[in-house]
């Protein structure tokens, strides 16, 4: 007992040393970028819910503030880091960065974050003008929103690139603690990015459309590029699965938390008389194809990239489509309307008695040959995006600055 005691006391100073070194190894701006990415992902889900429940917002509505907080944190931390390295940095620091425009030294991740912050800044006056000219758009995809969305994605991507660059630069010289931090940061930043990727195309992912091939074609065009590249670049096992879990928990968490708060529609006309925040979508069951991606990459990472892409794309379609198809059935049933899946959710401006509320929209149902053909096309789209994702992942695994 006594000996044990003394051993414990001796360990303490050693631990502190490790912590100090890990802090030095992972720059603060990387933690800040990942946190910014989190703010953006949460802010976006919250903002959509706000538009479904309250309707009226201003420049400084709470969800907007969450998104701006992300932009500001990421922009300032990255900007300061670049300026600091450029003008006050040591030669060693400069040698770890990219020199651009003759004077600046910055990491690629920081450059992405700065670009994202500027894009978000640009979108604000552009969006304001757009609303005054074409009316307030009650949709996710419009040109100014695309600029905003690109800005947000770039910040999130910058966070991911920053994490992976540290990982690649230090390679096997990492201490356990730093390694764990990087591992977590990688899973988190990639998961937040996946939330954004999903939301960007969410107009095609509505539950009522999930028995239609277009949903899966759009999914194959947008999701593998994120999931496969992350899995391929990762030095850790099960990267895509962890990414999918983070995505699932964040989106589902919003479905569980938002309705706890009261909301009152502030715009006319109101057809659905709600009293609580209406959550956005319950997430896709992406854990299933993520497992498939991780298994295939773990087994055949070094085989021909086209063959690998084909295997992943087919595996993705064959695992994801049936899983999501029946998962959609479950959500469409009575079970889906409880708090867990949140499919009771309906915007204040939608008619609650609509005959299409709890059915798959008859215009969006694929059957028979159409279904087979459509999924074949989805797999072909997936082949292209997966192949791109492999190159992308290959590049990400080399980024060191």
């Amino acid at each position, binding site marked *: 007992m006594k000996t044990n005691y003394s051993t414990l006391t001796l360990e303490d100073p050693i631990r502190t040393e490790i912590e100090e070194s890990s802090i030095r190894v992972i720059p603060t701006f990387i933690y800040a970028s990942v946190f910014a990415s989190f703010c953006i992902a949460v802010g976006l889900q919250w903002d959509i819910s706000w538009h479904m429940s309250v*309707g*009226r917002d201003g420049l400084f509505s709470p969800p907007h503030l969450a998104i701006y907080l992300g932009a500001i944190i990421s922009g300032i931390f990255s900007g300061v880091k670049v300026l600091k390295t450029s003008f006050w940095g040591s030669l060693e620091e400069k*040698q*770890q960065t*990219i*020199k*651009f*425009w003759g004077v600046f030294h910055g990491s*690629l991740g920081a*450059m*992405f974050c*700065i*670009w994202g912050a*500027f*894009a978000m*800044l*640009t979108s604000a*006056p*552009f969006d304001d*003008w757009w*609303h*005054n*000219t*074409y*009316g*307030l758009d*009650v949709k996710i995809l*419009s*040109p100014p929103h*695309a600029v905003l969305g690109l800005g947000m994605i770039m910040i999130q991507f910058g966070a991911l690139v920053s994490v992976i*660059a540290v990982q690649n*630069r230090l390679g096997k010289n990492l201490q356990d603690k730093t390694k764990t931090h990087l591992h977590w940061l990688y899973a988190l930043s990639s998961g937040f990015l996946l939330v954004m990727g999903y939301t960007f195309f969410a107009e095609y992912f509505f539950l009522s459309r999930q028995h239609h091939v277009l949903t899966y074609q759009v999914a194959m065009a947008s999701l593998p590029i994120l999931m496969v590249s992350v899995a391929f670049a990762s030095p850790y096992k099960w990267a895509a699965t962890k990414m999918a879990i983070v995505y699932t928990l964040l989106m589902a968490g919003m479905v569980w938390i938002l309705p706890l708060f009261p909301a*009152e*529609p*502030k*715009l*006319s*006309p*109101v*057809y659905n*008389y709600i009293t609580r925040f209406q959550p956005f979508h319950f997430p896709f069951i992406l854990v299933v194809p993520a497992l498939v991606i991780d298994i295939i990459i773990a087994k055949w990472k070094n085989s021909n990239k086209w063959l690998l892409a084909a295997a992943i794309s087919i595996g993705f379609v064959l695992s994801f489509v049936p899983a999501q198809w029946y998962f959609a059935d479950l959500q469409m049933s009575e079970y889906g309307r409880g708090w867990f899946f949140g499919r009771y959710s309906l915007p204040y*401006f939608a*008619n609650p008695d609509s005959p299409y509320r709890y059915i798959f929209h008859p215009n969006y149902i694929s059957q028979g040959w159409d279904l087979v053909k459509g999924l074949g096309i989805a797999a072909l789209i997936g082949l292209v995006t997966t192949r791109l994702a492999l190159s992308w992942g290959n*590049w990400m695994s*080399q*980024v*060191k*600055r």
Partner: protein
Amino acid sequence: MGKNKPKLLSMIKKILLPFLLVIILCSHVGSPGVIFEGLLGPYRILANINPPDVVPGTAMVTVIIPDNPVGILLEARPVYWSAGLKGTPKADPLVAVPGELGKYEGELWFMESGTSSVQLMMTVGGETFDTIIPVMAVPTAQKEMPVELGIVLSLLGILLVVLMVTIVASAMSDSIRDPGLERTSRTKKRSQIGIAVGSIVMLLILWGGKSWWDAESTAYQNYLFEPLSGQSEFIQEENGNYLHLRIDELKSTQGRITRKISYMVPDHGKLMHMFLIRKGDLDVFAHLHPERLDTLDFRVKLPPLPSGEYHVFADITRYTGFSETIVSELIIPPSSEFQLASNVPVYLGRDDTYTFSNPISNKPYSLDGDIMICGKPGIKTDLPGGYSAVWETETGKFEAGRLYNLDFALFDPEGEAAILEPYLGMMGHAVVLKHDGSVYIHLHPTGNYSMGSQMILLERFESGKIGFLDIPKSLSFQDSIDQVISFLDALPDTERDSLLMGDMVHYNWDDPEHQEHSMVSFPYAFPEKGNYRIWIQVKIDGQIVNGAFDVEVE
């Protein structure tokens, strides 16, 4: 029979009143504001609503309470015909404008196109009074980007493009270089390829973005409110000359139900109020009421009007509360004048009327010092039959965008106050036309709204009906409306007027200053600068009397 008639009348009155009294809501061209004058609780108020020009967008609501009471709470909210009161969020307070006594302002969001209204609510001493003012929510404007904003956005855009090209080039070259290693010729080459690839990608994105923007802009233009148009034709027949109006079919995909032409309902007992004004000199004015031949075709007998080109404005309204003005042109050929000169008697409809006045002069009217009404100078116009009208105005100056009461005093040939009778259910009608024809509006003493439209919206709101599902079939609806019109046309004047006036409460100006003459007053805000002509129409001794005034708005 004699006993049954009042019963039948009261029954018809009850059933049809909402339809009979639906009034012109946006029967105007180039004059978007909705003006209301009336009582709200114990106070007389004047409200001016500037509907949004982009939908979804905001409307500006201005309320003036001349008594400037203290301790009141004034609120407003937009209520849609389709959503009713339950589907309308809590009202927003209107805020007192500093420095302007009794003036309140507020902004309201209109999220959908269609028939809507503003509900004004006033809380005085624990009691709440409210009123409904109909408003059409339609997108009417396509805006350009201000140059300053364009410059700022362009600069930011260039920065984003250049930075992204830099990022792509760095990603392909420097980012994968081990720390501490110098650039090699290979890195440099990859960087150059990166610049090329990045530039091409950015150009593609910009091109895609532009196509997208253009497509959105085109989609918006298709969504813009397009007024109904029509073709007016002059037709000579043995028993006289006719105007045939064919309404062009609605092309817009917006408002397929709201703007259905077969949903037309009578306004002041008439399905259509048509105004003919000779172009250029604006010296000939006629107010006619065409009959419906079928859904799109209308016809009316023409009074002996001189040849020339005419503006034709036809005001209609619908069951859904949506009303508008059909604009067309009529050419009366010179040959017809010959026939008219031969003094063939023309039998017009009993409510149809026309008048000749002096051609518009380019000089604005000056105030006549000899004409003083209540100590204020006025502009006098002689009316047919020895009557006269005086436009009472303190300065004779009018500013665009400001709300005025256009006050007219009417005199009989003896110079005594003329006794006004209701004409088509109103104590007076006025038409305002900008000399170039770009602004046209039909006014009433209550503004450009009536108690009737209030009633149709209120009744719908009380019924709790929402949406577009429980509404009548267009053909049977058209038939029953035609029957109502023929019933009304067969009624004698007094009975019809009492039916048309309904429960309308005309605010009696309790104004000792004006006891010795008859006044008719129209609240209006001229939308833009320029020269305007105003025709007023009143009924004295059973005769419809028209008079024209000119005004320059600064």
